[in-house]
């Protein structure tokens, strides 16, 4: 028996992944301008796209999180989460390599008012990249378990 296709493992993975992204969407939906500021600070995206990212990415996190948890469109949600996490790894990694301290903004509001040194920001970037690698692995497990499943198994997984 292939443990990576284990139904219970997939449920636990879906629970962790779904809850993580729903939690991640909460502060962004509560304060879209704050998330726009986070995206701006990456210095990677054209000005005209910043608000569009800030409007739609949190909704993707929320709805895909619900999809992963409920089992409806779980494969699509897992694929989306994998791609989104890869995107953040690349963005953070690029900024880390070029020496631009960036607040990820993945799981909390922008650090307005906090006196963060660049050294601390770089340490946080590394930690957040590691978290994102973990999220890619979780997404891959769900995809592997559900995409490789036979039609009947896939149905029972939702």
């Amino acid at each position, binding site marked *: 028996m292939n443990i990576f296709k284990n139904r219970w493992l997939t449920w636990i993975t879906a629970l962790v992944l779904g809850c993580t992204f729903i939690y991640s969407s909460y502060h962004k939906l509560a304060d879209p*301008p704050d998330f*726009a500021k986070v995206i701006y600070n990456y210095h990677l995206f054209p000005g*005209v796209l910043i608000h569009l990212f800030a409007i739609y990415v949190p909704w993707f996190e929320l709805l895909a999180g619900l999809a992963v948890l409920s089992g409806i469109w779980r494969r699509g949600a897992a694929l989306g989460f994998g791609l989104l996490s890869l995107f953040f790894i690349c963005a953070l990694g690029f900024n880390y390599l070029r020496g631009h301290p960036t607040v990820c903004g993945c799981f909390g509001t922008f650090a*307005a008012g906090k006196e963060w040194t660049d050294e601390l920001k770089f340490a946080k970037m590394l930690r957040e990249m590691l978290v994102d690698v973990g999220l890619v692995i979780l997404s891959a497990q769900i995809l592997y378990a559900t995409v490789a499943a036979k039609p009947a198994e896939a149905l029972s997984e939702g």
Partner: protein
Amino acid sequence: MKIALLELVAIVLVVLLAGTAYNLVNRGNPQKYLDWVSKGLNPGIDPPPPRDKKQEKETPKEEEKVVEGGASEPAEIEGFPMIGHEDVLAEYHGGAALFVDARRTRDYEAGHITGAISICSWESDWEEKIGRLMQSGEVNLEAPIVVYCVNWKNCDDSVRTADNLKRAGFMNIKIYKGGFPEWQQKEPGLVTQGKEPGKKP
């Protein structure tokens, strides 16, 4: 995999609907609503230089002063002169300078420099606020303006607001290096809470 892609497209379509509806519902609330196309934002691909960069081995440039720990503090940021507390205080008591709080409105309401107005470039009503300021006739385009947020190392809000004021035609804009935390610490009697700017002494 094809099914996963189709499901992803379906999720994206629902996301487009939900995001659009949510932003439209927030239309009357500048603290939540975002213009569809961001105005006045041009981050560029080149980030600003790291602000904590140690310059122990390098000779500091003339316009930079060395502070404790070997880090240098530039005299300007993105073309705007930065001034310290003493100069800010002189501008404040001089009476002619307009103080602009570039932080979020909720932070402004929690406490701001007495007499300062709020213009946060991340909120959708910043253009309207600058328009009102220009129409009010309280300040002319040459008048000194001091913009502040938290402090220059941890807050780009001042630079964004200064940039927007500059594009509106204001010519004499300075940035308060220490920002509101320094002011609150050194001039606790000149802090006002609430939506109104308050009256300068």
